[in-house]
């Protein structure tokens, strides 16, 4: 009898119904709409600027050129912004992960004294805040305004990530902790040598979230800095290129004749998302893993 029961996810395909065809096609269309915008910009970025202005370049360039990329990579500011963004993404994410996971470990321990109080104090900040002006005053008061530290220090800790990470720690067997205690390991030791290695997936997920967040950050540059060379980030630079065509190329007029500010901004967009495009296929499974680990408990 049992073999006649169709399992929910059959290994072999069991004959598709009309609904299946519609569903497959509908989802394919959805994905097409989600991915196409990037193709559109990619085509524009390889297009001759003047030809592009005639319209109709939707999938592949009519007149191919690398001029847009030559112009944008010749702008020194792009590289400064790139360098700053890489530093922020690497340092900011790692520091935030280390600090947040340390706190998360403590919060995940049931024997933590005053645990209820700590939980309440953490949660409250997720739902209530001082707002823009008081925060801005604080940043100024701490001397963080217009310094690179404004990207690092205020982002050291995140209650949301703490919840995700401590969810990961709690999923580990309590016997592990007990036996480590019997072996005489201190709490920090247990965290670093047992819990951290065993929660690699959650750590990787939170690290990726942090990295993407740092890479994509725009607001902090706009509000808490003057956007100078010491603090300019990629997204801020990009905003200038897209809105005001504010870039200063150092290439000859021959190349400049082949571009418009529009096609150059498309090249800038592609240059800015290149790292994300590059790592995404390899890491996409980690992007979603933490959601499952942290959120579906309880």
């Amino acid at each position: 009898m049992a073999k006649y029961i169709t399992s929910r996810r059959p290994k072999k395909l069991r004959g598709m119904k009309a609904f299946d065809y519609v569903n497959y096609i509908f989802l394919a269309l959805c994905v097409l709409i989600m991915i196409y915008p990037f193709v559109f910009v990619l085509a524009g970025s390889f297009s001759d600027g003047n030809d592009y202005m005639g319209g109709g370049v939707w999938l592949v360039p009519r007149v191919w050129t690398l001029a847009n990329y030559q112009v944008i990579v010749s702008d020194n500011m792009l590289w400064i912004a790139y360098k700053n963004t890489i530093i922020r993404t690497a340092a900011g994410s790692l520091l935030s992960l280390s600090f947040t996971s340390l706190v998360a470990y403590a919060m995940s321990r049931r024997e933590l004294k005053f645990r209820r109080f700590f939980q309440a104090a953490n949660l409250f900040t997720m739902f209530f805040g001082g707002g823009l002006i008081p925060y801005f005053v604080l940043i100024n008061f701490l001397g963080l305004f217009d310094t690179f530290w404004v990207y690092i220090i205020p982002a050291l800790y995140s209650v949301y990530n703490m919840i995700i990470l401590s969810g990961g720690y709690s999923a580990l067997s309590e016997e592990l902790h007990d036996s480590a205690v019997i072996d005489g390991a201190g709490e920090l030791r247990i965290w670093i040598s047992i819990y951290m290695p065993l929660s690699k997936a959650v750590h990787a997920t939170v690290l990726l979230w942090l990295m993407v967040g740092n890479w994509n950050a725009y607001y902090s540059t706009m509000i808490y800095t003057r956007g100078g060379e010491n603090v300019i980030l990629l997204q801020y630079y990009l905003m200038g290129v897209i809105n005001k065509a504010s870039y200063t190329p150092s290439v000859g007029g021959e190349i400049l004749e082949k571009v418009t500010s529009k096609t150059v901004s498309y090249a800038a967009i592609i240059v800015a998302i290149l790292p994300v495009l590059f790592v995404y296929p390899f890491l996409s499974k980690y992007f979603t893993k933490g959601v499952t680990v942290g959120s579906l408990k309880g």
Partner: protein
Amino acid sequence: MDRIKDIPSAGRNKVRRGKRWVSRDYTLFAAACMGLAFLLVFAYVPMAGIIIAFKDDSLYFNIFDVIKYGGFVGFANFAEFFRDQKFWDVMANTLGLNLLMLLINFPAPIIFALLLNEILHSGYKKAVQTLSIFPHFISWVVFGGIVIALADMTTGIFNPVMYFFGIGSRDDPVNLLTAKYFWPLIITISMIKGVGWGSVIYLAAITNTSPELYEAAQLDGADRFKRALYITLPSIAPTVTVFLLLNISGLLSNNFEQFYVLQNPANTSRSEVLATYIYQTGMIERKYAYTTAMGFFESTIGIILMLSANAVSKKIANRGLFG
């Protein structure tokens, strides 16, 4: 996040140590205190800064002087924005758009997850999921830039697609970035960027549902639609509740960057929401007290919405954010 308050914790500690503190207690306590110290500075101190909302800032340009010397004016700053027509226009945009998004963008990932769950080829399913999540990881600056490119009246593709379907005419191309089209635009692009990522958590919940339930239902003669309705949907209901409550508590909040990148003088009448208006009055017009009062109002309404939605949900579904 099912029970946000109950940060999950491992089984009971076997060794009861009573009230005495031993060295590992100090370690844990110190670590938790470091987190709290951070919050004290970066969350609780700004909350104390709400005092600016009750001060007179008309005499001082420097905000520190406002805090130090500004006289108390009670709720005058609140009264000021309550009397301001601009504020009500902004509120109408904020609430109107967020309610529409609650109606359209909130159920979309659930439907997307249900449809994705019906896919029989696991490779196809994985491909759809991987690709649909991608836009979530692209910044709003980039995505907004791309939207502006797609909507461009001469080089974009939006108008040609409309012509293809027989809508509009070549002599009168539509400018999507004007006030008239801003709401449909922002709803659509939020959907494109967010639906894949939003469905991840629901799909995970669906995958966790016991297969025996489906088999039993099948034996009882339930077809696919019925199984989705009576097994899959109830199994993700707790997750849906949590996200619904979070959405309701955020009815006055918006993603600043999403709006900021697409704003222009031709659409501010429909695109100015509280998040961008607070930036406008605070950072550009430097009306510190007025802006702080508005921020306080937003936070307060947010927490009231959250608590009341939570209470209603507990009463109806016997289930809330905090267990």
